[in-house]
């Protein structure tokens, strides 16, 4: 059966339709979940896509996390539902406390849009199916606040519990331990700064993101 994915749209979100396109191309089905509507429309999985929810004002994700839909997303997470936060979505999930740590400004104090190589550090999560630890993927990044930080205690906890999902092989933004993506303890909520939906076609430069999205859809 085709997976139905809900893609959350806040005011300021801009990757929602790209994400839907990629999901559909890879065999899933997808529809928009409006931030002001607490209903999840019985979807099987949720993506919080990239963009600038609420203009990224105050802090990325700070305002978005109070949206009516986010209460439902939190319960969905609790029940083990698969949730993927991409870029701004990752920021929203950390602000909402569904993922550990925080994302602050890149060390170079510049927005960065470029192809990046990331490595699978753990496959014990909704994105790892069909991949091996150590697999390398070419996936673009596109962010100003992608510099992952957390307290030393949190870091050692996520390291021992294999919650680090991706690492950059050439750290572009100063992230602690080159972290590019993390998951919650159960592995059903993942946040990543790179944009897998932008790496689903050779015509556009890479299709390495397809495996990640396919795993999410399975």
């Amino acid at each position, binding site marked *: 059966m085709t997976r139905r994915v809900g893609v959350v749209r806040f005011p300021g979100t801009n990757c929602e339709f790209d994400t839907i396109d990629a999901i559909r191309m890879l065999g899933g089905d997808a529809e928009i979940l409006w931030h002001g509507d607490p209903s999840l429309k019985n979807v099987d999985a949720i993506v919080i896509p990239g963009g600038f929810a609420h203009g990224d004002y105050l802090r990325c994700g700070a305002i978005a996390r109070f949206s009516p839909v986010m209460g439902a997303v939190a319960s969905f997470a609790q029940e083990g539902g698969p949730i993927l936060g991409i870029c701004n979505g990752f920021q929203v999930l*950390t602000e909402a406390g569904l993922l550990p740590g925080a994302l602050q*400004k890149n060390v170079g*104090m510049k927005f960065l849009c470029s192809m990046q190589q990331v490595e699978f550090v753990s496959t014990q999560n909704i994105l790892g199916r069909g991949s091996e630890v150590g697999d390398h993927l070419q996936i673009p990044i596109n962010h100003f606040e992608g*510099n992952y930080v957390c307290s030393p205690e949190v870091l050692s906890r996520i390291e021992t519990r294999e919650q680090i999902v991706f690492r950059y092989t050439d750290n572009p933004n100063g992230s602690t331990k080159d972290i590019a993506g993390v998951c919650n303890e159960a592995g059903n909520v993942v946040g990543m700064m790179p944009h897998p939906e932008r790496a689903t076609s050779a015509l556009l430069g890479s299709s390495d993101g397809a495996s990640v999205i396919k795993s999410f859809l399975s």
Partner: protein
Amino acid sequence: MHFEAKIEVSPRDGIANPEGSTIERALPALGFKTTHNVRVGKLIRLEVEAESVDVAQSLVEDMCNRFLTNPVIEDASVEVLEV
């Protein structure tokens, strides 16, 4: 009653502050050679109605904790003044 609040949001000690470090790196070339430890935070001002200064203070502190700051990376101090 009407109050003005000033909220100083600073990067937490021990957390790198890319904005401050970038400024710090640029300063010597501009002739400012004796400056260090630059840290950039936010300054939020707002007006609030409340029955008393204590109520206003705790209201704004609550706002800070729940919303205006992220405790993983920031500290805040709140100052409330009647106007």
